[in-house]
């Protein structure tokens, strides 16, 4: 393998090609954006109605336009507990050693309960969308129709992968994060310094991230191979996907790393610019909404770029060791002239 070939298939190059593909098929990001926007709208509509009811006639409204008043929000959440229920607590509880228990999930109310339901719907739609994305990325002339068709075509298999991956991630969260937290809680308290305790927590967090990354890459690899190798039987496709991930772990991890870095960069830009925080003077309502949605769209372009990058990393140059493509015919060397031909023994068939 030449140095150029290695370079051409480096993780950054794969992601770069993926993003170019994503840009060439913007309707994929648009589809994801629409799905997310609709789901988010369902979630936010009751909040919006409550906000209008409480704020429109309130003298606090003018203050709230320019300066988000934490006290007002605190009161709102306290006085209207059904609005978010224990949802904020669930979110913050996810990173504590105790984590989130199923009984706490059962206590979800109001928007919190709707969020949980929509989250499940989002997971299912995610399976559909990924079928569409991977399928369309393989088509030179894709369209929204291709996206829908490919999504539906692969939906059963992709839903299975997604749910399996979901279950694996939950198991990893439980066993790598929660159980180690519980097991180590007392020992961590006995450490000499907070610095050591933070190092232990950081190690647990890193391990969790690595396991989750492995789950994600394995799943995405199976998805990519599933689409790229329709010639294989389903079980072979699945194992070929796993094998492909195992064969190129660093390259895949690299694609994921660069994609995460780019996404984090987008968020950093957003947080530094902070267009949401300013008053009317900085961003009027319409420009603000447009800015927000452009940000979401950019992030989704990057997301599609990541999936395309993974597909590139796995399928652009098929690996012979995992290929079922028939190897070129090898011509048998002619027998040496001085070697006598074998005589068939008598009675042989």
């Amino acid at each position, binding site marked *: 393998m030449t140095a150029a070939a290695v370079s051409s298939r480096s993780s950054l190059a794969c992601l770069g090609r993926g993003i170019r593909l994503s840009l060439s098929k913007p309707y994929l990001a648009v589809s994801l954006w629409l799905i*997310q926007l609709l789901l988010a709208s369902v979630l936010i509509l009751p909040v919006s109605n409550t*906000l209008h009811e*409480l704020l*429109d*006639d309130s003298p606090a409204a003018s203050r709230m336009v320019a300066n988000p008043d*934490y006290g007002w929000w605190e009161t709102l959440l306290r006085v209207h507990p059904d609005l978010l229920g224990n949802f904020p607590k669930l979110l913050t509880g996810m990173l504590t050693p105790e984590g989130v228990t199923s009984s706490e999930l059962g206590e979800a109310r109001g928007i919190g309960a709707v*969020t949980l339901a929509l989250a499940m719907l989002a997971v299912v739609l995610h399976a559909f969308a990924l079928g569409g994305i991977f399928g369309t990325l393989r088509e030179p002339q894709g369209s929204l129709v291709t996206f829908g068709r490919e999504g539906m075509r692969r939906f059963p298999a992709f839903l299975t992968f997604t749910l399996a991956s979901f279950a694996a991630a939950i198991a990893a969260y439980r066993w790598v994060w929660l159980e180690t937290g519980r097991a180590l809680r007392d020992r961590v308290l006995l450490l*000499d310094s907070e610095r050591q305790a933070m190092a232990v927590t950081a190690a647990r967090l890193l391990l969790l991230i690595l396991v989750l990354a492995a789950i994600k890459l394995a*799943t995405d690899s199976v998805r990519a191979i599933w689409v790229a190798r329709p010639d294989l039987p389903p079980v072979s496709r699945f194992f070929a996907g796993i094998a492909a991930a195992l064969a190129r772990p660093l390259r895949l991890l690299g694609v994921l790393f660069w994609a995460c870095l780019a996404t984090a960069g987008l968020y950093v830009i957003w*947080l530094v610019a902070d267009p949401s925080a300013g008053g009317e003077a900085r961003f009027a309502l319409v420009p603000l909404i447009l800015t927000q949605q452009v940000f979401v769209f950019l992030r989704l372009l990057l997301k599609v770029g990541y999936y395309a990058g993974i597909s590139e990393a796995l399928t652009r140059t098929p690996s012979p060791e995992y290929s079922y493509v028939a190897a070129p015919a090898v011509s048998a060397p002619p027998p040496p002239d001085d070697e006598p031909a074998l005589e068939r023994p008598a009675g042989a068939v």
Partner: protein
Amino acid sequence: MLSAKARIFLLAAAAVLPRAAELSGAQLTAPIASYEISCRLDTDKKTVEGTELITWTNRTSHPATTLQYHLYLNAFRNSRSTFHRESEGRGRAGEPLPESWGSIEVTRMTYSDGTDLLPALTYIAPDDGNRDDRTVAEVTLPRPVAPGETARISIDFRSRLPRVQRRTGWKGDFYMVAQWFPKLGVLQETGWNCHQFHMNSEFFSDFGDYDVSIDLPARYRGKVGATGKQVEERAGNGERVLYRFRQESVHDFAWTADPGYLVRRDFFREAGLGDVELILLLQPEHASQAERHFRAAKAGLSGFGRVLGGYPYGTLTIVDPPWGGTAAGGMEYPTLITAGTHLVAPANVHDPEGVVVHEFGHQYFYGMLASNEFEEPYLDEGFNQYMTARVLKTAYGPNHAFVSFFGFRFPLGIDLFYPVDENRRFFAVATSDLHAQKSWGFRSRTSYGGSTYSHTALALATLENMIGTNVMDRCLRLYFERWRFRHPTLPDFIAAVNEVTGRDWTWFFDRTFRSSNDTDYAVEEVRSTPAKPPRGLFEKDGRLSEGPQPELAKARGWDSVALVTRRGGVVLPVDVLLRFEGGKTYRSVWDGAARWKRFRVESGPRLLEAIVDPDEKIALDSDRTNNGRRSRGDPRAATRWTSRSVFWAQNFLDALTVVW
């Protein structure tokens, strides 16, 4: 005859001299229960063995036939103690307590005449009758102690310390030795006041002088802190070191030792407030935060001192517990407080500062006023919470740092954000419990915290807003000066308020402290419609005729209505502000007694908005979002927040699908 100048000088000197004596740390009050203790720390067994000589004077008008004393460490003796039953084995933050037990045993007890008192020792449970609880003991004296008479009791004891929990114990080589010696209750005219160790309760004791000698392994040399002033350090037998601390006019003694301490010293000096030596026992990994601790301590000394009076003791020791020992943090003992910080403590979050100022504030309410924390916990925690917020606001500004995330602002170090954090804590439990009650009578720890700390702070802030800050300061000053070292109760503070204001404010305390009602005023309706000309029969030239006088026939201005309601049970007078077009305003005080009041303005300018409690005087108002209403809606804020929420939800939903 003295000259006029000399007379003035002598008068000034006479005024200053007692104060100078006070500030020097000399005896500030006649001792009732004084302790001389010699103890030895055994770091292998985690025990402190000691001998104490109690000198106790009966200051009541009745002879005392018994003694009652606290054996606090027995709260950690087993899971049958009242503390363990009430807490269900959980710490202050709900964390499981370590499976490490503590105890205190009295091995000898003799009266001054040599009588062995130990056979007469019995354990009692005056609060809950729990026969398994060994935190209060009683002995019958061989003969009654007459009023004014002084008794001396000598006690040998062995204290086994638990791993740090509820303010006391060890972690590695760190020791926070508190609630550790047999300690007398308070004899009142009604009998002994000596409560068990409860989940929520703290302490109540008589003042006295403490002289304590501590024998430790030599590796603790120079790394010991305690109540009072260190008067001696000398080598002990073998690889040991001996320290001696002394402090007059305090009601408890705690000490700490950790070979890892960084010892830092500073000095507080401010005109009129006396000099104080500051000793900071800091964990090495928090070395960079030393100055923040000192600045906070000085802010406390100055802030509390300016309002209440100077801190009269010569030293203040601040203890920073180590990692894993934070259950010892955030606690107060006479002249010694424990704080607590983290490795990552951004300068603008003021996390250690808040704890230092709060715990220092206890030197006044717990320390010098020394109210009964078992029976009236709010007189310490609540008053201190109120004053802490004021001192922090003066020293560090009204708000603290926020982080802005997708347009939502999240406060960092929420404990400083007054009054939002008080609101958050209190209003969640506002109607759960009667606020003025015994500390173990609350439904839950949350309710105890919300009522004792936050409700009191909000009620006092409301009172301050009603009478003015200067008058409030005079009330607090009078209360402190009159009652320090005398265990005041709520009526004593009410009397101080009444005296300073010249009015009876008992009703305010009845409706707030002695109630479990909530407070909520709201504006429910605001209308402004063009005025219509009067119709019907009117007198004209002495006769009734249809239609008004010509000058009245033309409608002018707007007819406006504002409906203000009292939704809560607490009745407080409240301001109502009506704001009209053209900048005109109308302000009125409503007594708040009825459930509603309607304000009408006819043929006036157009009413824009009505606000109840516009100056936010009533800090106890549980729902401020309904305190105002406009006649014309403005959807901009809600739309803006909706857009932010959609954006936030989009990001959240996307994050959900990152892994799978």
